[in-house]
C-alpha cells in the first residue's frame, strides 16, 4: 500500500501548478481588460464636448433607433439560418440570396404599381401584394435549393453541403446578374411611408417603425408556430433526433422542406422591408446582410430562435452605436470604417465567454 501511495502524492504535487484554473484566470483577466477598455472608451466619448467631436443626446437616440431597425431585418434573416441549422446542422450560406431573390422579385411589381399610381392610391393592398410576391419568390428559391442542392447530399459529410451552399450562393447571384444586369434598381416607396412619426417623444422614421412592428409580429408568430402547432412540434422533434423522429412517424423530408419554406417566408418579408428602407435592389444585396445575419445567428446561439432574434438586434445596435460610443473616445478617426471589425471582435469575445452563443444552451432548446 505504502509503495503505491508515494508516487501518487508526487503526481499531485507536480500538477498543483497545472491544476490552477488557467482557462478561467485568463478569461477573467480578458474580461476585466474588455470591460476596462469599453468603460474608458465610453466614458471618454461621453465626456467629450461637442466641439471636440462629442455627440448630443439626440444623436445617441437616433443611433439606437437606426441600429434597432437595421437589427430587426438582420434578425429576420438570422432566423432562417438558425432554423435550418437547428434541423440539418448545416449552414445555408445561400440564405442571403434567398433574401435577395425575394427583394428582386417584388421590385418588378412594386415598380409597376408605382408607375401606374396604384402604390400611392392604395398602399396597403399594393404592399401586401408586393410582399406576397416576395414571399413566393423566396420560398420557391429556398425550397428549390433544398430539393436540388441539399437533399441529394443529406447523408454526405457535413462539409459537403456547406461547400454546396457557397456554390449555390454564387450561382444565384450570377443568375440574377445575368438576367437583370449588374446595375442597381431604385425600389419605390409609397408616400405614406415617407417622413417621421413620434413614438413616446422619439422621432422615428415611419419605415423604421414599420420594420420594427412587422419584425416583432413575425417573430411572435414563429415562436407560437414552433412551440404549439403539430408541424412545429415535429420540427423540434427532428431537430432533437432525426432518426428517432422518423421512427415516431414524422415525415422528415416534409419537415425539412417546411423549415426551408419558413426561412423563405421570413427572408421574403425581410427583403421587402429592406428594399423599402433603402429603396434600392441589386444582385449583390444579399451578401452583406447575409453575413451580418449569420453572425447574428452565431452570436445569439445558432439553432435557437430567441438567440437569432436577440443576435440580430445586438448586431444592428453594435454597428450603429458601438463604433461612436467606444472608439470615438480614443480619438480614432473614421470610426464607422471599423464597424465590421468591431462586430466581429464582439463575436469573438462572446464566443470566448459563451461558446454556445448568448442563448445557446442545451441541445433540447435547438430548433
Amino acid at each position: 500500500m505504502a509503495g503505491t501511495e508515494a508516487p501518487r502524492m508526487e503526481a499531485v504535487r507536480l500538477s498543483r501548478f497545472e491544476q490552477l484554473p488557467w482557462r478561467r484566470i485568463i478569461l477573467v483577466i480578458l474580461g476585466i481588460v474588455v470591460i476596462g477598455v469599453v468603460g474608458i472608451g465610453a466614458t471618454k466619448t461621453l465626456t467629450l464636448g461637442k466641439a471636440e467631436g462629442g455627440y448630443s443626446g439626440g444623436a445617441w437616440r437616433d443611433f439606437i433607433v437606426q441600429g434597432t431597425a437595421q437589427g430587426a431585418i438582420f434578425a429576420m434573416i438570422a432566423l432562417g439560418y438558425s432554423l435550418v441549422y437547428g434541423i440539418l446542422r448545416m449552414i445555408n450560406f445561400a440564405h442571403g440570396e434567398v433574401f435577395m431573390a425575394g427583394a428582386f422579385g417584388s421590385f418588378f411589381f412594386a415598380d409597376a404599381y408605382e408607375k401606374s399610381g396604384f402604390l400611392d392610391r392604395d398602399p396597403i393592398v399594393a404592399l401586401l401584394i408586393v410582399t406576397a410576391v416576395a414571399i413566393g419568390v423566396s420560398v420557391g428559391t429556398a425550397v428549390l435549393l433544398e430539393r436540388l442542392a441539399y437533399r441529394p447530399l443529406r447523408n454526405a459529410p457535413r462539409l459537403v453541403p456547406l461547400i454546396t451552399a457557397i456554390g449555390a450562393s454564387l450561382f444565384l447571384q450570377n443568375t440574377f446578374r445575368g438576367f437583370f444586369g449588374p446595375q442597381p434598381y431604385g425600389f419605390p416607396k409609397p408616400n405614406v411611408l415617407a417622413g417621421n412619426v413620434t413614438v413616446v417623444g422619439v422621432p422615428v422614421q415611419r419605415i423604421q417603425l414599420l420594420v420594427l412592428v412587422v419584425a416583432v409580429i413575425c417573430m411572435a408568430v414563429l415562436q407560437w408556430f414552433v412551440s404549439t402547432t403539430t408541424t412545429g412540434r415535429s420540427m423540434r422533434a427532428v431537430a432533437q433526433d432525426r432518426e428517432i423522429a422518423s421512427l415516431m412517424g414524422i415525415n422528415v423530408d416534409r419537415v425539412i422542406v417546411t423549415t426551408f419554406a419558413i426561412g423563405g417566408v421570413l427572408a421574403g418579408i425581410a427583403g421587402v422591408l429592406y428594399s423599402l428602407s433603402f429603396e434600392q435592389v441589386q444582385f449583390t444585396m444579399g451578401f452583406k446582410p447575409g453575413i451580418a445575419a449569420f453572425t447574428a445567428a452565431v452570436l445569439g446561439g445558432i439553432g435557437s430562435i430567441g438567440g437569432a432574434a436577440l443576435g440580430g438586434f445586438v448586431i444592428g445596435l453594435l454597428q450603429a452605436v458601438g463604433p461612436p460610443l467606444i472608439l470615438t473616445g480614443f480619438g480614432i478617426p473614421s470610426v464607422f470604417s471599423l464597424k465590421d471589425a468591431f462586430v466581429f471582435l464582439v463575436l469573438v469575445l462572446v464566443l470566448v465567454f459563451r461558446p454556445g452563443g448568448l442563448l445557446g444552451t442545451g441541445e433540447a432548446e435547438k430548433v
Partner: protein
Amino acid sequence: MEHRRWFKALALVAVLTVVAGACASDNGGDNTGGNGGVDCATVEFGCVEVGADEAINLGAAQVISGADSTLGQDQVNGIELALDHLDGKFDQKDGTLLDHPVKLTTEDELCSAEGGQTAGTALAADASIVAVVGTSCSSAALGVADKLLGDKGILLISGSNTSPALTDPALHNPFYARTAHNDRIQGAIVAEFSLGSDVGPKAKTAATIADESPYTQGLVAAFEANFEAGGGTITGSEQVDSEDTDFKPVLRSLAEQKPDVLYFPIFVAACTLVIKQAAEIMPDTTLIVSDGCLSSDTLKNAGKAADGVWASSPDLSAFQKNEFYSGEFIPAYQAAFGSDPLSVFHAHAYDAANVVFEAIKKVAIDNGDGSLSIPRQALRDAVFATSGYPGVTGTITCLPTGDCATDVTIGLFLGPGWPVEGGKGDTTAKYTDVKSLDDVL
C-alpha cells in the same frame, strides 16, 4: 472509377493547354537584332520584334464586364477609333503604322485590384505586346498592373485613372503614364467651388465620406487639403464600404457638427443611397459628388433626392468646341458603334493610343527586311518626352511623374441637370475652372 479516369484526362488536357499557351506566347520575343544605335541584345528590357508580315500588338486593360463596363468599353471604342484614324481618316478600316497593321489585345481588368492582377499578368506574359492602354480603374493599376507591366518594361498609359497616388513621386512606376486628369486638380476645384464661388454653397465647414478605393481616397484627400488651405474647416471624415447600404448612423454622426457641405465622391450604388439618406438626415447640407457617381443610374434611382446635388466631372463641353471632336470624332464613334459615347473617357483613351503611336514612329528600328524592332526603354522615354502634342482632350505634355494632362477643365453640374442620359433642364456646367498641376496642392 470511370469518373476518376475521365477527370484525370481532363486535368492533363488542362495542364497541357496552359503549358502550350505559355510556350506560344514566348515566341516572337527576345530575338535579338536591330541596329540604329540600339543593341536589342544588351539594352535593358530588350526590344519588341515585329516580323515582316506581323501586326504591331497593342494591349488594352479595360473593364469590359460588370457594373462599370461602360467606362472600359467606351475606352476600347476610343482606341479602335485611333487604329481607324492611323491612315488619317475615319473610314472603319484600320490604318497602318510604319506599314504594319496594329492589332488590339484586350484583357478585362474588372475595375478591381484582383482584375488588374489577372489582366496585368496576362499582358506581361505576352512578349509581343508593345504597350498597354489602361487601366480603367485606379485600383486595377496602383501597385498591380503598373508594377506587373513595369517590371517587364511595358509602358502602361491610362485614359481614365485619376487617383493622385499613381503619379505620386513616392509611388510612381517609371513605366506608368496617363492622359486622364489627376484628381488633385478635381479635388482642388471642388474645394474652391465649395468655399468661394458665386453659385456654390459658400461653405465654411465640410465633411467627407470616402470608400476603400484609391480613387475616392485621393479625391477626398485633395479636397480636404485645399478646403483647409482655403480657410475652411473639415468637421469629419468617414470611410465606408462600397457594399454597405445603411449609411444612416454615419450620416447622423457627421450631422452633429452641421457641416455646410458633404463631399462623397463614391460610386453609383453607395452614392445613391447616401444621397437619399442624407436628404432626410442632413437636409440643410449641400451635397457634392464626383464623376464616379455621375451616371444616369444615380439620377434614376435617387429620383427627387438628386435635385440640388452637385456633381463634378471633366467638362466635356470644352472638347465640344474642338472641331475635330464634334465634327469628325463623334460622328465616327456613332457610325462605328451605333451609339453616343458610353462614358467620358473615350477621347482620353484615343489620345493615349496616339501618343504611343507617335512614340513608336520615333523609336522603331527598321531592320531592312520589313521587320521592326521596338526598344522598350526608348519607347517609354519617347512617350515621357511628349510635349505640346495636340490631342483631342487638349495639349498633351508628359511630366516625369507620368501626368500627361496638363491643363484640366473641371465642371460642376447641378442635379437634375447632369450631363448624362436622364439629366433634366440645363445640363451645362454651372461652374468651370481650368487648372494645371502646378496650381494645386
